[in-house]
């Protein structure tokens, strides 16, 4: 594998992480640790593909748009279930998130294995539309499809909203100190629901992108969950900053694919080294955690009320 190819592929893979990570950042900024992200990304891929099944024969623009909308709806629905459990019913966020992941992965397997019978007609026909309008080729810079640019646009927009707008200020306040936000008249529940649903929808796009653009294969859905966990790790790596996550996701992509470039550099590691090398992103995350925990800089810490359900003081 050529080195340039390796970089370009890493960037493309990184966009999967970027979507998952941006979605999780939005959710965590509202104080909710959504461990359901891997499941939500799976559902995003599945619901997008499901829409493609009924779009066969339509013009390419509609096909892509409808698949993206379906994916967003699928993710938002998962986000709504998660919010109902953790915001309204105040269930434990970790347990709920893990349940969402198990649920999402299971449902996706059911849907996708059903469609694999005639995958080319059911959803893979749309690959060329997703790689449009820039090129239909599958290698090099020209292989970057429309969703890659969408991913970067979403990350930039999130960064702008979080740091430069009133909505972002309110959202951060909800995640830092919901009691204070409540006292000044911010609708805490609405912000939590909104951030979780939008975040889940963004993450869901990551699943669709991975199946329909990056991999483009029948088997693609089986590996989304692993990438979902990496997206959650990426949130910590980026210190909850969407702008950093653009760079971070590419780095994670490179680390994840390191096992494919190292042999071509003349170093022979053998087959058993591949899974070890794929752990690199996690190792880096742990190192970042150690560094930020030592530095104690307040801006680099997770939102103060992350994982803590908010009970309004009654007396």
């Amino acid at each position, binding site marked *: 594998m050529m080195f340039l190819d390796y970089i370009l592929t890493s960037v493309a893979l990184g966009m999967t992480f970027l979507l998952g990570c941006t979605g999780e950042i939005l959710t965590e900024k509202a104080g909710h640790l959504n461990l359901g992200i891997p499941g939500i990304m799976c559902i995003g891929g599945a619901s997008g593909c499901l829409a493609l099944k009924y779009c066969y024969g339509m013009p390419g623009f509609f096909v892509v748009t409808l698949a993206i909308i379906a994916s967003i709806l699928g993710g938002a629905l998962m986000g709504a279930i998660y919010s109902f459990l953790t915001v309204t019913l105040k269930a434990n966020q970790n347990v709920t998130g893990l349940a969402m992941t198990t649920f999402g992965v299971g449902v996706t397997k059911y849907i996708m294995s059903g469609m694999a019978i005639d995958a080319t007609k059911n959803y893979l026909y749309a690959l060329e539309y997703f790689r449009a309008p820039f090129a239909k080729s599958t290698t090099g810079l020209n292989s970057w499809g429309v969703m890659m640019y969408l991913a970067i646009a979403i990350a930039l927009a999130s960064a702008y909203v979080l740091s*430069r*707008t*009133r909505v972002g*200020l*309110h959202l*951060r*306040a909800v995640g*830092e*100190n919901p*009691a*204070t*936000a409540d*006292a*000044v*008249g*911010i609708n805490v529940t609405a912000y939590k629901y909104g951030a979780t649903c939008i975040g889940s929808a963004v993450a869901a796009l990551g699943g669709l992108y991975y199946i329909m653009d990056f991999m483009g294969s029948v088997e693609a859905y089986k590996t989304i969950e692993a990438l979902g966990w990496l997206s959650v790790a990426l949130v910590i790596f980026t210190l909850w900053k969407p702008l950093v996550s653009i760079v971070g996701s590419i780095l994670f992509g490179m680390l994840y694919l390191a096992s494919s470039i190292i042999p071509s550099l003349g170093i022979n590691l053998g087959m058993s080294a591949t899974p070890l090398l794929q752990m690199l992103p996690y190792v880096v995350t742990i190192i970042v955690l150690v560094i930020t925990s030592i530095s*104690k800089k*307040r*801006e680099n810490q997770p939102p*103060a009320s992350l994982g803590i359900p908010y009970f309004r003081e009654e*007396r």
Partner: protein
Amino acid sequence: MNKQIAIEMKGVTKTFGSVIANNNVDLTVYKGEILAVLGENGCGKTTLMNMIAGIYYPDAGSIYIDGKEVNIHSPADAFAHGIGMIHQHFKLVDLFTAAENVILGNSSGERYNIARVSGEVKQIADRYGFRIDPDKKIYDMSVSEKQTVEIIKVLYRGAEILILDEPSAVLTPQETDRLFEVLRRMRDDGKSIIIITHKLHEVLSISDRVAILRKGEHIATVNTKETTAEALTEMMVGRKVTLNIDRPTPENVQDRLVVKNLSMVDIEGIKVLDNISFTARSGEILGIAGIAGSGQRELLEAIAGLKPLESGEIIFNRPKKNLPVSFYHKSLSDVKALAAENKFHYEDGTPVDLTGMTNREIRALVNEGKILFNEDDVMNLRDKTPLQIREVGVRLSFVPEDRLGMGLVGNMDIVDNMMLRSYRKSHSMFVDRKRPSDLADRVVEELEVVTPSTHTAVRRLSGGNVQKVLVGREIAAAPAVLMAAYPVRGLDINSSYTIYNLLTEQKKSGVAVVFVGEDLDVLLELCDRIMVICAGRITGIVDGRTVTKEEVGLLMTKTDSDTKKEV
């Protein structure tokens, strides 16, 4: 005077379950005045204010603003009517700057522009004489700066009526003076200010009128100029109360606890105590003054052996009384080894010889407390466990903010809580319930604890009674050193004075009392010597009889190294 009414409450009633918090209260606040709301704990003053601020909704009665009847259902409604409340616990986002906190939740149509907000904050600050940097993060601010941000926050939203809930509780005297100056300027600007407090001297110095509440009812509203502290107390409590603390001259003074160069770091590696040296003497009350969080808690915990020291010595000069070896929970082999080294003696002073005795006999001797340690009278508490420190008579009663956090278990009854300190003393496999039960009866009787029985869960007692149980239990152990931290926290005047008298009693019986207090006036009246700490360092140890409040206040904020040592 012909003044306009800003807000008027008529017949306001609020109940929580079967408890009546406010009963048929009438209250009028004029424009351009400072009204103090005064009352004991649980008299309903905070509830009343919360109804104006939109946190509670009254069950009956009506509220008029500028002559029009209004319904205030939420804090947002209150803001819309120009009412802003500054709570005792600040509601600020630590990670945000002052300006960001001020604009938070304010959804006016203008475009979000933090630089413009900073400018407006500066304007408000200049107008009333606040000192504030709008771009400073809250977590970098001192308590008084945070309070300033809270006040600017409500002013920014156009509040005409400001409610302050015990604003001076967390401030030094100098900061309080500055706050009061600002409040007076706001009053002159035509704003109405309601201030909740139970510090009488503040009421007299700042307010124009005083409204007194007792047991949820409005007793009277009087002009401050025409009243005295005694008259206000009488209205508040419902009977005459003497507000004098007895302070006898210390007798038979001995150095009991000598702390030398004590330093301590917290988990994050920050120095919380820096080179602390002082002496606590028997028959004397040593007061510790300082802004909350200056290291008072850490110091007492260090002495009690609950936190490890970085360096320093804590020398305890024990009153002559040798302890039975059973206190130290030594194993049988240890006892034998120590006996061989001639470390023990019997009660009559003869040395102990264990050779030829069976294990059972030795154990019986130990358990009956017949074998005493030949220990030196001077010991370094640094090497001792918390249990040993307690057993030699250094007792800590710490009342944290939530009262139950340290020392008492809320769901257990008074007897069980007494037993927490004594269960080790029973020698059978079953716990001894008789003695704790007797002790509970005695504490309840002597300290006038109001409780249905000694088998009531402590959590269901009122704050003052909980604190009496806590302090009572430690006193009952006949300590040599009694450390009381915030024993009157949140108590009303009556209960506070009971506690002060308890401490004075202990002092008279020769105990070295260390008292950490919040109210400077009380420290000045109660303590023989006052040690002032600021940011983990001693800034002065002064004579409680001659020092002035201003001097102590200055020491509380002093950061340079030249310390004042007079006594």
